[in-house]
């Protein structure tokens, strides 16, 4: 187990380094003179040259990359010249909103989708299963922004039950506690996720129901609720652990569509805006963050799976 952890850690570091290198080189190729991007179209050439020199962008690209990695290792993710703030501050400011919106929707989705999927598997091909399947397909195939538009138009503008935007505060606790304002964005995220998760859970449930251990449990006279809880749910839920693991980057990456639609300033929107602005340091830092989150998410999912399922052994 220890050897496995060390091996995975080394591979993870190499992957993250690779992500940083490729992102850095790509941005350098696209715009070799960040001064022009930062200062804008009407900045004079002396201003651009002076800015590039002042910030070390006149040096060879390998030297720039070396400095960047060295600074990252010391917790300095660079400075966003467009937003006039350190990138680390931007991440700290924006991450809680993204984590809350995406995290609460992931948890809600699982809480709703798991029993729903099991129910559909057990009642497969009945009217209720087909109705739920139809509903799942409708929400699953609906673009998130379209679903959001419908919810806003109906529940915010026409009936004025909920606000059309998420909570507008930089403070984390008031943001989290304002469930009324955050209801629509979380509902939009949850509805689309529930559709996907419940279909997945139904399929896993059907697979598990056909397994010998279910038949054996029933043959041994175990009552149906116990069969479902002890044998079906536990086995069908195992792949969901991987699904949750790969959701971790989404938690940190934020959700561009929902953040944009509901006026919630989060990491997804930050990445998108700064990508359009060629805000190098912010884009690289967020790409790195997403890389780290992906690696960590998969890592955690693998470990969690071995704990949850004694049949899996790591060597």
């Amino acid at each position, binding site marked *: 187990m220890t050897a496995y952890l060390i091996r995975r850690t080394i591979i993870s570091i190499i992957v993250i380094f690779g992500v940083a290198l490729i992102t850095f080189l790509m941005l350098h190729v*696209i*715009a*070799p*003179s960040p*001064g*022009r*991007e*930062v*200062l*804008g*179209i*009407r*900045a*004079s*050439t*002396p*201003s*651009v040259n*002076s*800015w590039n020199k*002042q910030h070390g962008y006149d040096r060879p690209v390998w030297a720039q990359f070396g400095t960047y990695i060295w600074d990252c290792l010391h917790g300095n993710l660079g400075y966003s*010249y*467009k*937003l*006039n*703030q350190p990138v680390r*501050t*931007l991440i700290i*400011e*924006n991450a809680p*909103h993204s984590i809350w919106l995406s995290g609460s929707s992931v948890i809600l989705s699982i809480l709703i989708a798991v029993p729903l999927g099991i129910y559909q598997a057990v009642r497969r091909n009945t009217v209720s299963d087909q109705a739920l399947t139809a509903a799942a397909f409708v929400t699953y195939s609906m673009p998130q922004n379209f679903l959001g538009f419908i919810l*806003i138009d109906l529940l*915010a*503008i026409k009936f*004025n039950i909920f*606000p*059309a*935007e998420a909570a*507008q505060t*930089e403070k984390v606790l008031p943001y989290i506690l304002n469930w009324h304002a955050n209801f629509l964005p979380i509902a939009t995220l949850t509805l689309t996720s529930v559709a996907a998760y419940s279909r997945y859970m139904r399929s896993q449930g059907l697979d598990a129901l056909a397994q010998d251990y279910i038949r054996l449990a029933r043959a041994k006279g175990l009552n149906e609720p116990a069969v479902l809880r002890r044998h079906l749910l536990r086995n069908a839920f195992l792949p969901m652990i991987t699904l949750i693991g790969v959701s971790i980057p989404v938690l940190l990456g934020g959700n561009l569509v929902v*953040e*944009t*639609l*509901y*006026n*919630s*300033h989060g990491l997804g*929107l930050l990445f998108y*805006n700064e990508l*359009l*602005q*060629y805000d190098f340091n912010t884009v690289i830092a967020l790409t790195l963050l997403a890389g780290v989150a992906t690696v960590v998410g998969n890592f955690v999912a693998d470990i969690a799976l071995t704990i949850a399922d004694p049949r899996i052994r790591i060597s």
Partner: protein
Amino acid sequence: MTIAESPGAGPNWIFPVTPAANESVYTVSDFQGFSWLPVLYAPKGESPQISWNQSLAKSISFKNFNRTVIIHLRNNYKWSNGKPVTARDVEFYIWLLKAAVKISPSNFGNYTPGLFPDNLSSMGTPNNYTLVLKLKHTYNPNFLELSQLGVLEPLPTAAWSKTSLHGRDIPFNNIRNAEKIYNFLAGQSKKLATYGTNPLWKVVDGPYVISSFDPSTDGCSFVRNKRYTGFGRPHINKVVEVAFTSTQAEFNQLLQGKIDFGGVDFSDLKQVPNLKRHGYAVWGAPDFGFNYVVYNFKDGTNDFGHIIGQLYVRQALAHLQNEPAVIKSPAMFDGAASQAYGPVPTSPSSPFTPKSAAHDPYPFSIAKARTLLGKHGWRKVNGVLTCEKTSCGGGIPKGTKFETNIIYGSQPAIIGQQDEAWASNMAKLGIKITLQSETFNQIISTYSDVGTNAKNRNQWGMIDFGGFTGFVYPTMNEIFNTTGSFNFGGFSNPAVDRAIHASEYSLNNSAVQKELNLETQLQPGLFQPMPDGIAAWKKSLSGPAYSFAAESQYVLEPNLWYFKK
């Protein structure tokens, strides 16, 4: 009252010497402008002229062929700490400006090497309310007032001439001290989280003072400066600027009635009647700027540089643009734009508009374009317009095909839509155009500057990134003069160079009209319709009409507004 910030364009620099990286109308006019006033206030509503009522200066006079400028300040303005606003405070600003550009030219967004403050030979304050500036050259008076001296604004010497928050004042009138003070103030301006509490930013001469700032969104709020003594004392006690992630999010809030004043994006034009039903007034006008397609006069591919170098070709291309149809089209501007035949659009009315730019010199006519090109030897051969004479002018050899590409900005979509409509008209004559979409930054960083960057020359025939905004004094210096920094396509014409020089350096007040007239006739680029900047405000909000019109020039004047009961 609640004002919507333009999505993705929140302010992020409070110190009024604004670096190029942070320079934007939203930061300067709609944020700093609430608290610190300029010496010469422009525009006046939607008109590109000085609004003397709103200016700190009561008059300005010139001597010695405009090399000596005497600014007379009003004596009724006071800082919020009770001290009077004096000429020395303007002098302080100029010293900080000099220090900023000495440290780095990028520290001042409006900086052009050789112009202000480089062109200042000396300055003095004979009394508290008179500032005398001696310049190295003679300048056009309009250029001086609207462009050069328009940046001047007093800063509170007594509160800011220091190098630490609780330190003592130090003399600012030597460059070494000025640099130290600049570094301190610029450093404070980087602490966004402290904007609402930093005592420095509480000393203002404008109608409002900042009370909070949210660095995660750039949303902010202002309260009335109770000691404001100038023009337009505020009726509204608190102004909240709300940040938005998208135009859609902002529009939803308008529909819910939660915003008193906000912009309306083109994508929401169809919903304007709905907005009016929700109790809003909606109005728009173009800003002082222009949109154009840049021609590459150095493009060697298919000899396009030579082709576009011919005036008759540029005239023919102008005839192929159907501006009225583009403006009227519900899929494009839906009526919310003005025609533009040169660097100044037909609306809003401007004292600088030459007669030639008020009417279309090259109205839409495929027949006229065909005739113009045909007269010079262009014929359709195998579907492609081809030079069939020994020379079609300017060294274009027989057999040259009229084909090139347009690289256009991917956002906003209207750019590509206009170019597609234009290319479609060109195709009717056999002009073969390849359209390619790129991001704004990609266009500017990769394809610009064919003058000095040889490798860019043959990559493109035309680019369309949108255009420029904010030309209160509309000389095209740097854009259409031979050595201009933004002369992306390498246009060169000695008469235009002379006219641009006269717009800046001659004493003739009508010099800029002559320049614009020449540019309209010569078509150094394809001038396109100028979109309206549209705003919506609650019908209960009222004030002088010009204060609402100023919004079309990105200037907010909430101190002039009030709510009707």
